[in-house]
């Protein structure tokens, strides 16, 4: 884990659907980290992620990636820079097969050359996908769909992967497996920014975390330390 800051979000105000969703939000993700962004439903976590991936643009503030200002870039250009988003709700292409979903992940120019290599790696991470590679995405179970979604995100050869609500609707067993996968991803040198409603689990798996409430960052720091914080325990663990 290095000290090099890969992603720097500085003082962003973001409006979504006509209302303000984020107030003066800042965060950092360093290379090789797993960072969790936790908070309850509607806190603004997804909005923040979408601002980083370029789907939404901030009204104020900036987003920098690997030293480059990407605030005004469109989502489809940001992918080429090395950021990949695994969207909330998986959002697979329903009428395309597992293989086709993965393949389209390497659409952007730089990733195309590495397609076969990345595909092999994804199949190593998720062997069940190799079995089901010609199956239509919409016929898969929730856990399998999440695997495809993550795999698809990896196919674009990212340096930073953003994962939005990975555990939503999945059984704890599958969620555990997926978190194991996150560590494997990190071991390959890919940085992870994770958004989760499941505060407990994400704090236990991440290196650092930010707690966000009603559009503002309220706490940040080492994940395990945050677990011990009185406020956090009261608010999220019902203690």
């Amino acid at each position: 884990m290095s000290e090099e800051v890969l992603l720097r979000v500085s003082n962003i105000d973001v409006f979504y659907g006509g209302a303000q969703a984020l107030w003066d939000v800042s965060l950092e993700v360093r290379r090789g980290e797993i960072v969790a962004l936790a908070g309850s439903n509607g806190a603004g976590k997804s909005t923040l992620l979408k601002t980083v991936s370029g789907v939404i643009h901030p009204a104020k503030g900036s987003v920098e990636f690997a030293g480059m200002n990407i605030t005004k870039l469109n989502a489809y250009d940001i992918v080429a820079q090395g950021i990949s988003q695994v969207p909330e709700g998986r959002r697979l292409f329903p009428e395309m097969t597992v293989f086709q979903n993965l393949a389209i992940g390497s659409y952007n120019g730089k990733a195309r050359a590495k397609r076969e290599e990345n595909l092999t790696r994804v199949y190593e991470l998720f062997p069940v996908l190799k079995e089901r590679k010609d199956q239509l995405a919409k016929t898969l179970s929730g856990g399998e769909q999440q695997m495809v979604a993550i795999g698809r995100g990896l196919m674009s050869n990212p340096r930073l992967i953003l994962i939005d609500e990975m555990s939503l609707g999945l059984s704890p067993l599958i969620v555990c497996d997926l978190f194991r996968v996150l560590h494997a991803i990190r071991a390959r040198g890919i940085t992870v920014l994770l958004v989760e409603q499941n505060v407990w689990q994400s704090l236990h798996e991440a290196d650092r975390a930010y707690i966000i409430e009603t559009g503002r960052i309220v706490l940040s720091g080492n994940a395990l330390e945050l677990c011990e914080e009185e406020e956090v325990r009261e608010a999220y663990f019902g203690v």
Partner: protein
Amino acid sequence: METLADLASPIAIGVLLGGLYVVIALGLSLVFGVMKVINVAHGDLVILGSYFAYVTSTSWGLDPILSMVVGIPLFFVMGIFIEKFLLHRAFRMSADAALIVAFGISLIIQNGAQLVWTPLSRGLMTSYTLESLKIGDVYLPVVYLVDFAMALVVVLAVHQFLKRTYLGQAITAASQDSETAQLMGINPARVYQIAFGIAMALAAIAGVSLALTFPFTPKSGVPFLIIAFGVIILGGLGSMVGTFIGGMIFGLSQTLGGHFLGPTGQLLVPFVMVLVVLTIRPQGLFGR
């Protein structure tokens, strides 16, 4: 009472005619699937293709099929221009606005063509226009066989393009979920342009087919639009096989309608069928 033998000819021709309708419907379906907009000018664009073939054939003496070498790239570029500068702006306002703009384009093409080429009915004559192949008791006009063969080639080509190329898969992805497609690095505006360009190229091909087969006037576009729409609704979006079957069903409805009800029936039966299909099953028999 009609015997089956008497019906053999209209049935055979109806099936072959389906090929022509498939090519027309394919362009419409591509745009509809990707942009969720029905290009009501599509029929007129096909007729424009017919006039192009007519012009190259009469002015330069080119065989119409060869004229496609020029026609296809030309129409492709035209399509990109139309999408980029006209339809895209309207589409960003609302789906209704895009429909109205397409309607305006339709009228411009129809009446422009009427000014340039007069309402007189035109057709293409080639060496094989009047020839027929005799199979059993049935005479199959060669042009219909050519249409059908072209349809097979076109459908195969488009299918492979959509399945095997990155651009084709990008179009497919964008038509299923355009926001997520952006997360793959796909620029939706570019996808729309290319899709529309391809649709216009298909219109050019269909135009040649049509010009070889029927006489046409500047106003011939609307009936073909309606039938093409019926084909994609019946066959279902995104299904090549479905579109082919839909094309053949409508081809049959036209030839059999004409056989039993006279020339009015040739359009009346397909039109009524379109209404019925729209009412009963807008999502089609094969589609999603």
